């Protein structure tokens, strides 16, 4: 088989030694076979990675390429059993993905019948192979494939011909099928014909497309129809029959095919192959993302961290993915911290919060903000040196004040603690938070009227009050937050809404 692929320029190949057997019996056939010294062959192919994965095929053995030759080949099948096995005993596992018909499998014939029943209109190929069909017709009388004989025998067993018409149809169908199966090795149908057969669910074969030109024509025809089934079949045919560099070059020119093929590899969990393919196409960004996806499939957090490290080193090296690289690093850092926190907390018998509010779940693999929420719940008081300290987390990851404040409010509320704005402010430290949550309100007491403009720039106070109320905050706490609002009317409205009577009184008093 592999010899056959290079027929286009046989004389230029150093290992060319075999004889070319031109195909004489069938008009239009493109197949010929040479023989070559196996040792030479192995030496050549073994040394390179360009060898297509499956090259074993029917014609590695000596054979005459004539109709009788083919028949001789077929006659070997009964011994080889129902699975697809090549005459020399090597089963081709990944190479023959595109084959749809096999002559020797009984159940296969059942399938073929189902298909025939549905698409009852005449298949286009039967016209184009009619010349061959005539020749085969005579042969058919003297030779039947095993499955056909089984069928005939079993139906004859049921007695005299009662349903002759049905049987005639069956015979016609089987004949047609047989003709098609002959033609698979000997005749190249026009590409659109084959592609239409794939789309319409009729039996087809890609074996006969041997020249690169034919294969590409087939692929391009498939691409023009956009049917994923046909495109993938032709891609895999190309991939299995040409060397990698050719495959990559040709795919590069066909972006739609690349997307489909990459996703096919992904779904087959052939990540490394997909990543390598994307890189060879010159798409390092997509390769990087895919390598990250692969890294995440690691079973343990340790394995995932290790994978990410590797993927950062090999794939996230381009400036175009610098942002993504930063995120992956942050993910690793977070996972490490989560594991450390879990290590400490799972053994901790002294932390009263852990005893009072038993942990619902392990913090490992949670998002950054969920981790912060967890830390605010259990390690609110912890110093920055503690691994679970919210402030340490803030320092390690660039958290915005908005993220910090919202999460702290919710996390503390979960343990029935509602920090006042002043408390949050000192927690965050004065730096940069002057405008955050009423840092001045403490200085001016609850009547803090001179508020910096930045308050509302960070959190929408109405939403904060709503959230606090939802979490069961007492009304005196709500009053302090309501007081942060500039607008007196909305302050009054909120105070009414959330039944903060003292706040209402204060506002009315202040108004007058």
């Amino acid at each position, binding site marked *: 088989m592999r010899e056959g692929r290079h027929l286009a320029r046989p004389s230029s190949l150093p290992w060319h030694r075999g004889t070319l057997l031109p195909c004489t019996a069938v008009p239009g056939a493109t197949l010929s076979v040479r023989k070559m010294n196996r040792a030479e062959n192995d030496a050549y192919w073994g040394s390179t990675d360009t060898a297509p994965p499956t090259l074993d095929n029917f014609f590695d053995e000596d054979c005459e390429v004539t109709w009788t030759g083919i028949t001789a080949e077929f006659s070997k099948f009964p011994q080889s059993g129902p699975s697809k096995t090549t005459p020399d005993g090597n089963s081709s596992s990944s190479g023959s*993905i595109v084959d749809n018909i096999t002559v020797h499998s009984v159940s296969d014939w059942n399938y073929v019948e189902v298909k025939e029943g549905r698409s009852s209109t005449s298949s286009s190929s039967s016209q184009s192979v009619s010349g061959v069909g005539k020749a085969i017709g005579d042969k058919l009388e003297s030779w039947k494939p095993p499955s056909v004989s089984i069928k005939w025998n079993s139906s004859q067993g049921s007695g005299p011909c009662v349903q002759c018409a049905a049987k005639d149809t069956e015979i016609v169908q089987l004949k047609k099928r047989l003709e098609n199966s002959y033609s698979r090795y000997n005749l190249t149908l026009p590409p659109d014909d084959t592609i239409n057969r794939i789309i319409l669910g009729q039996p087809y074969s890609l074996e006969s497309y041997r020249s690169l030109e034919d294969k590409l024509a087939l692929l391009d025809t498939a691409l023009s129809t956009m049917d994923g089934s046909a495109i993938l079949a032709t891609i895999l045919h190309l991939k299995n029959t040409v060397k990698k560099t050719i495959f990559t070059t040709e795919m590069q020119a066909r972006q739609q095919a690349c997307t*489909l093929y990459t996703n096919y590899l992904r779904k087959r969990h052939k990540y490394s192959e997909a990543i390598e393919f994307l890189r060879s196409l*010159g798409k390092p960004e997509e390769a990087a*993302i895919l390598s990250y*996806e692969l890294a995440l499939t690691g079973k343990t957090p340790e394995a995932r961290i290790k994978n990410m490290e590797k993927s950062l080193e090999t794939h996230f090296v381009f400036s175009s993915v610098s942002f993504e690289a930063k*995120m992956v690093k942050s*993910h690793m850092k*977070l996972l490490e911290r989560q594991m450390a926190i879990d290590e400490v907390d799972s053994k901790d018998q002294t932390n009263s919060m852990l005893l009072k509010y038993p942990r619902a779940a392990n913090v490992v693999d949670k998002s950054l903000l969920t981790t912060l929420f967890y830390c605010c719940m259990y390690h609110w008081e912890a110093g920055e040196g503690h691994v679970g300290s919210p402030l340490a987390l803030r320092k390690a990851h660039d958290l915005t004040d908005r993220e910090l404040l919202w999460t702290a409010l919710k996390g503390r509320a979960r343990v029935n603690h509602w920090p006042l704005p002043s408390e949050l402010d000192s927690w965050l430290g004065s730096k940069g938070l002057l405008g955050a949550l009423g840092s001045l309100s403490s200085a001016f007491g609850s009547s803090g009227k001179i508020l910096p403009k930045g308050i509302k720039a960070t959190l929408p106070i109405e939403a904060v009050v709503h959230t606090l109320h939802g979490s069961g905050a007492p009304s005196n706490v709500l009053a302090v937050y309501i007081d942060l609002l500039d607008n007196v009317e909305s302050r009054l409205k909120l105070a009414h809404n959330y039944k903060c009577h003292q706040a209402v009184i204060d506002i009315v008093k202040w108004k007058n």
Partner: protein
Amino acid sequence: MSHGVDKMYRLERVPPPVQSSQRVYLIRPSLLQLKTLADHVHSDHAAHPELHVHVVVVPRLVSWVTGLLEEEGLYGALTLHEFCPDFIPLDDDLLSLEMTSFFRDAFLEGDFSGCVDVARAINTLQGLFGQIPYVLAHGRAAKAVVNTLDLLNNQNSPKKTSQMPEISHLFIFDRDADYVTPLLTQLTYEGALDDHFGINAGVVEFPGEVVGQDTPRKVPLNSKDTIYDNIRNKHFASVSSYLITKAKEVNAKKEQAQNMTASQMKDFVANELRTLQTCHATLALHLRACESITKSVKQDFETQLTTEHGLVTGASNAGQVRKFLKNCLARMQPLTDNLRLFCLYSLTQDGLSQKDYKELASQVLAAHGHKHLITLNNLRQLNLLSATESSTSSTGVNRDSSSTNIQGRLAQVTSLLPKKGQGWRAAAKRLRLIPDPDKAIDLHNPSEPSYVFNGAYTPVMAKVVSEALSVRGAFTQTLLDSLKVLPGTTTSQAPAPGSPVGPHVALVVMMGGITYTEVAALRLLAVTSGTRIIVASTSTINGDQLISGVVHK
């Protein structure tokens, strides 16, 4: 079980116990499902060599199914069948193929094989109702459907094709021609039901509080229920008042019964009472559903709507939108809600600056987990998200040095400039999707399809179909030209002059899922244009389903 089936199982990793000599797998042509199936067969084979396995692939036996089975050594050991269900009628005017993964398969993963199944289903309709003379298709998937349809037509007998057409127009659109519609909050009653409870294949599962019992109950939603038929397409704001009026009518009728003579009463009980009672039950159900939706909408629902509509019309201030979005992220609102708004923001701004994108993206990851780096990448592949100042100088190791020369810098600068005639805003302007804000819109008795979004936006499909149907005969060049602003190419077919075109009936097909909002807009269009419109799609969809379909699991 009927048809001699002992037991049905959901396909899971662990194979079900072997209880009979035959087993049938009913699967979609998905590689992951197939692998599971193959593992089942392998693990059962040793203990039960006699087990005969049938595989029914829905809707089509594609090349990788046989390929994978062959690799697994199972080709020939299993009996393969295919079953194409064609369109499933969810209602008199709504057909679905229930191919819920089509959007992801086609637009994200580049597998348009589902188009063949859509074409087959349309071909079946053409077999029944004749060849459709006018065809307008836009987008990649739509083109694939038209191509396959031509192929199938050639296979049909000429008798079928010469049949008098009963459908005059066929419109096929890709979902990516209008991402804005599914991203916006749905405001029709049916849309709101879908957003809140989820409508699956025309059936909603109401929680116990809505049906007034302890357990949830499934309720089919279609035009057979006349009360539902009257409210489904109404703007949510006008539904409860309608229901209350109706409920009062029913009560009034019941009260009339108090003063009836014996014979009148007999007649009333025999004929009317039953209908009144079911009527009453339905009204109560929908009133409770309305109540439940109103209660569960977010506290800042109004801000959300103002933000969404402001983004579309261009009225809102980008800074305020960012702030709103950042607050949503910091509060860890549901992932799909946050991503919907993020995408809408990006789309309506014709892409975000790198700075904005990175800032918001890192906050998405902080709130929902770093693994969503993959989700964000998916959204970018789909063009739902985009960051301008394209980082296309891909192998960017040498990027900094190359940009020192003037040409490189020039190229960088020009790539920053907005491309003329591209992007969503240009398309919206060209297709006039944003109605005149000064023109008042009646939400209760709508006359324009834009009522579905409070008059802020007209779904692309409703707009194009309405333009196309307003002209008798072939599609105008103006219309075809205006479609050029949408991603993808347009294909149109018109019958030979003089050939019969049939009555004014349109089949509108959406590739990648249709929202109930669009269905409502098209139903209004059917009334205003005097056309019967049948809507078909690969499945019904809402914003959450659209987004969660491409979220990394």
